[in-house]
């Protein structure tokens, strides 16, 4: 697979490591009433879709940036690559 890095252009998948579902960006509020349940779900449960999947990749052998890659799990086709920082800020996180 070639991952089209937003800053560096197409790079081989071997330069990256994958963390998993991009939902990991949305860390629950630790002060919430049901924080224990929220963190259990956040850490352990997955949508695991057959089709488009948003996931976090780390450019370990490159510029060490975190990316959100939208990839089809049925075909391995990569549809979209964004900087994870941009995605996190757009979702209301401060960094």
């Amino acid at each position, binding site marked *: *697979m070639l991952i089209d890095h937003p800053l560096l252009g197409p790079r*081989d*998948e*071997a330069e990256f*490591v*994958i*963390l*998993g*579902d991009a939902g990991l960006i949305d860390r629950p509020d630790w002060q919430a009433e049901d924080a224990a*349940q929220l963190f*259990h*779900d956040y*850490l*352990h*449960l*997955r*949508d*695991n*879709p*057959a089709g488009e*999947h948003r*996931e976090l990749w780390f450019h370990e052998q490159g510029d060490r940036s975190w990316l959100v890659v939208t*990839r089809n*799990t*049925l*075909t*391995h086709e990569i549809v979209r690559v964004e900087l994870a920082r941009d995605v996190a800020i757009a979702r209301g996180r401060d960094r």
Partner: protein
Amino acid sequence: MRYSALQILRQGLTGNRGWKPVWREPEPKPHYDIVIVGGGGHGLATAYYLAARHGLTNVAVLEKGWLGSGNVGRNTTIVRSNYLLPGNEPFYELSMKLWEGLEQDLNYNAMVSQRGIINLYHSDGQRDAAARRGNAMILAGADAVLLDREAVRKKCPFLDFDNERFPIMGGLWQPRGGTVRHDAVAWGYARGADRQGVDLIQNCEVTGFDIRSGVCRGVETARGTIGADRVAVCVAGSSGRVMGYAGLRLPIESHVLQAFVSEGLKPAIPGVLTFGAGHFYISQSDKGGLVFGGDIDGYNSYAQRGNLPALEHVCEGGMALMPMIGRARVLRIWGGLVDMSMDGSPFIDRTPIDGLFFNGGWNYGGFKATPASGYCYAHLIATGAPHPVAAEMRLDRFERGAPIDERGAGAQPNLH
């Protein structure tokens, strides 16, 4: 028809005209006591043990494609019970014991071959860990022998013992481990279940569940609605997709695991070998092909095929362990879908929906578990209580802070 040497002789003398199809091809009935979703090794074994051990025969197995078309036909055929943790090891040892009696039990030749498995170690720390694992195995009734360097050399003189980075110091040997003809396991269980009256229904994809007021009353399929008092899902690899129909999110990701076979070679490799310094394992099939594999690719996938970096990594491991492999040509490569769970261990449990049971999360190790998985799942479905050796394989174990994490990698499925 019971298979025997006499039967072969009789059929041979009469032109082999008397052989019958191994199982029936029934039309689905409108209602069963138990419907098993998934006609792979685990589903067929479950059906077999429900009938054989619990006398429940008003059972159907629904399979999307043909029987045994999933992971039971796509694995590297290794059986072993060399686990460490008390939540796992007694279960896998039960599986090992069931493998040992399988062919007599099923009256079917599954080519169970206990040629032994050696997990190599390359440092003092790894030796201590191997000794600890061996002791845990022996405590659970399994067999384990700690081999030193010379004992390994005697069995496998072709290994690169003096590798600069990863010298081989010895290995943990389980003599009762080995390989089993994978397709024959599915066929043997299918035949055994069919002979006791279980309906095996192929080309019957399940597309939904009939759930009313929190109770599962049947399944929607490509061939209409089939009612059932109990529905047992057994579709590892696609668990997320199928349980999604019931609105459940699971502690599972689907990944792709590749395997490789070389051209046929003269017998060279005794039993199964695993490299302790990188992820590489190898055995030799009865036809002579080297069957080997390593890590999963690492990303979520339903594609049943992987990519080249995983292949390269596996071959590097092979070259580091046994340089002679460099002359062998890879003949076939394939990928299978595996349920990677959050702690690397499986689930055999009820779900929050009454009448709906779940078996999955087998990671890359489902084949060896086939008999015990079917045995314990049948026990759960028939009695309503988990079998003692599978009592920790619960879906809620993360909430309770009781994962079964052999590797200690935490909730990161692609590291298990």
